[in-house]
C-alpha cells in the first residue's frame, strides 16, 4: 500500500538533493537546476496532500500549477542574469560573484 507518507518521503528526498545541488555547485546554471528539483519536490508534496487529505477540492493542484508558472518565470529571469554574469566575467561561478560585500 502506497500511503501518503511514501509520497512525502519521495518529496523530501528530492528536496534535499535539490538543496544540496543549489548550495554546493559552482556553476550558476547548476544552482538553477537544483532549485528546479526543489520546486518539483514541493509540487509532489502538494499534489499528494491534496489527493489523500482533501479530495473534494482541487486546491493543491491549483497551487501546484501556480508553482510551475512561477518556476518558469524564475528560470527565465535567472538565466538572463546568468548570461549577463557570463558576459562580464566569462564564467558563471557563483563563488566568484561576491561584489555585494562590506
Amino acid at each position, binding site marked *: 500500500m502506497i500511503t501518503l507518507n511514501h509520497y512525502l518521503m519521495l518529496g523530501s528526498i528530492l528536496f534535499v538533493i535539490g*538543496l544540496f545541488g*543549489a*548550495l*554546493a555547485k559552482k556553476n550558476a546554471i547548476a544552482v538553477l537546476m537544483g532549485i528546479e528539483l526543489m520546486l518539483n519536490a514541493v509540487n509532489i508534496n502538494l499534489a499528494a496532500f491534496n489527493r489523500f487529505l482533501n479530495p473534494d477540492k482541487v486546491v493543491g493542484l491549483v497551487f501546484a500549477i501556480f508553482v510551475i508558472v512561477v518556476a518558469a518565470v524564475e528560470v527565465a529571469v535567472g538565466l538572463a542574469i546568468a548570461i549577463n554574469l557570463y558576459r562580464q566575467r566569462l564564467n558563471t561561478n*557563483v*563563488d566568484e*560573484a*561576491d*561584489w*555585494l*560585500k*562590506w
Partner: protein
Amino acid sequence: MIQYAWLVPLFPALAFPVIIFVTRRLKTLSALVGIGAIAASFALSLGILWETLTFGVTMEKPVEYALNWLALPGAKEWALKIEAGVLVDPLSAVMLLVVTLVALLVEIYSVGYMHGDPGFSVFFGYLSLFSASMLGLVLANNFFMMFFFWELVGLCSYLLIGFYFHKPEAARASLKAFVVNRVADFGFMLGFFYLFLMFKTFNFRELAEALPHAPHMGLLAVAATLIFAGPIGKSAQFPLHVWLPDAMEGPTPVSALIHAATMVAAGVYLLARAFVLFASIPEVSLLVAYVGGFTALFAATIALAQRDIKRILAYSTMSQLGYMIMAMGVGSMTAGMFHLTTHAIFKALLFLGAGSVIHALHEQDIFRMGGLAKDMKITTGTFVLGALALAGIPPLAGFWSKDEILLAAYSNGYMGLYILGTVVAFLTSFYMFRLIFVAFFGKRRAGLHGHESPKCMTVPLIILGGLTVVAGFIGAPFVPHGFSSWVYFGEPHHLEPNYFVMATSTLVAILGIYLAWLIYGKEVISPEDLAQRWRGIYTVLYNKYYVDEAYLWFFRRVVLGLAEAFHWHDRHVVDGIFDGVGDTVRWSGYRLRYLHSGSLPVYALVFFAAVVVFVLWVATPVIGGIR
C-alpha cells in the same frame, strides 16, 4: 492715617521706575522725584507714629491688615497661605520714622555729594528702590513677605555697593556682599519654612499665639538658630561679617544709609519681630547674646588698627550691631531697639561727615589727613558730636541707649557680657578719638587742605547733630512714657537707673578719649613706635584676623576641590558611559560587517542552517516520538 501705611513704601517704589524710565536724563528732576517721594513717606510716618501714640496702638494691640497673596487650599486648612500684609505697632512705627528720616537726609546730602557723577539719576533711583524695600520689610506682617523684602534690600545693596562698577574692587565687593548674604539667607529661609511646617503659618501674630503649644523644643531651637542665620549675615556678625568692610567701596551716602543706619539694622529688627521665638528658647538666646558680644569685641579690636576712615566706621558699625544683638540675646528687646534708633542717627551723622571729608580731600587714609578742624568747622563739629555720642558720653543719645544694654546685661545676670560690653565701650571711644585726633587735629600730614562742603551736605549734618543731642531723652530712665513703655516684649520695661553702671560706662569712655589724646593728640608715645613694638598684634588686627584669607583658602581648597572632583566625574564617568556605549556600538559594527562576505553560497547555507535549527526546534516532539 494708619490705614494708609501701605503707601509709605509705595511712594519710593513708584519713584524708582519714574526715575529710571522717565526722568533719567534730567538730573535735577530725578533728585526732586526721589526726595519728594521719601519726604512724603517721612510725613506719613510721622503721622502714623503720632496716631500710634495717641490712639493707644500697643505691642499687644497692633493694627494689622492683610490680603491673601497666594492661598492654596489643603485638606482641612490652608496648605499654603502667603499674605501681603501690614503690621503697625510702636516697633514698626518707630522703625518707619528712623528709616524715612535717615533716607530723606541722605538723599538731600547726595545732591551735593554725587554732583557731577554720570550716574546721578540712577543713584536716586536705586536709593528710592532701597527705601521702598526697607520700608516694606519694616511693615511686613509675616515671615514670607519680610523675606521677600529682605532679599530686595540685599539686591539694592549689591546695586549700590557696585555703583562705581568700572572699579574692579567695587564690583568684587558687591558680589561678595550678595554671596555672603545668600549663605545667610539660605539659613533664614530654611528656618522659617521649618516654622511653617510646624505651625502652618508665616504670620508673626499667629506664630506668637501658637508657640506656647509647641510640640518639640529641640526642633524649635533648630528653626530659631536657622532663622538667626539671617541677622548674622545681614547685620554683619561673626562669621558672616566679611562683606561689610568691603561694602565701603560704595559711595559714602550709601554707606551711611544702608550700611550704618538701616539695612544692617534689619537683622536686629527681625530679632525684635520674632522675639517671642527667641525668648522661649534660652539656649538660642544665649547663642545670640554671645555671637553679638563676641562680634562687638572682635570688630572693636580690628578698628584699632585701621587707616581708612570709612573702614574704621564700618567696623564700628559692626561692633555696635554686636551690642544690639547682644541686647536681644540677654532678653531686652527694648534696649536693642533703642540703641538701633540712636545708632542710626549718630552713625549716619558720622558717615555723612566722613563723606564730607572725602568729598573735599579725595583721600580716605586718615594718616594722610590732619588739621581739618581749621578748614571744615561744621563738619568737624558735627563729627566730634557724633563721636562723643558713639563713645557714650552723657547726655548725648548714645549714652542712654548703650547704658540700657549694659544695664540689661548686668541685671539679667550676664556678668561676663557686661564686662565685655564695658571693655568694648572703652575701645570704642579710643578708636573714634584716635580717628578724630589724627584726621581733624594736629599737623597736616600730606599737605592736604580741606574746604567746607556745600549747604545741601552740611545742613543734614547739622540736623543729625541736633537729633543726636536730644534723641536720647526719649528712652532715658527718668522720662515717663518713654521708649521703654511703648516698645517692649512681654511687659513694659522700667529699669531702675543704676548709677553704678552709668558711672562706670562714662568713666571708661572718658578714659578712652584721654588715652587717644595722649597717643595721637599730644603724642606722648609715637603711634609709629607703638605699632612697631606691638608689631605682631598690630599686623593681625590690621589684617582683620585673616578671616578673609581663611575663607579664600576654604573656597579654593574645599569648594573648588569638590567642584573639580565632580567635574572629573562628569567628564569621565558620566560622559564615559555614554561615549562608551556609542564606542561599543561602533566597534561592534566594525567587527560585524565582515558577515557580509558577498558570497552567495554562504548566504544560502546560513538560511538553510537556520531552517534546520527551526525544524529541529519545532519538530522535536514528533521526532522524539511524542504524538
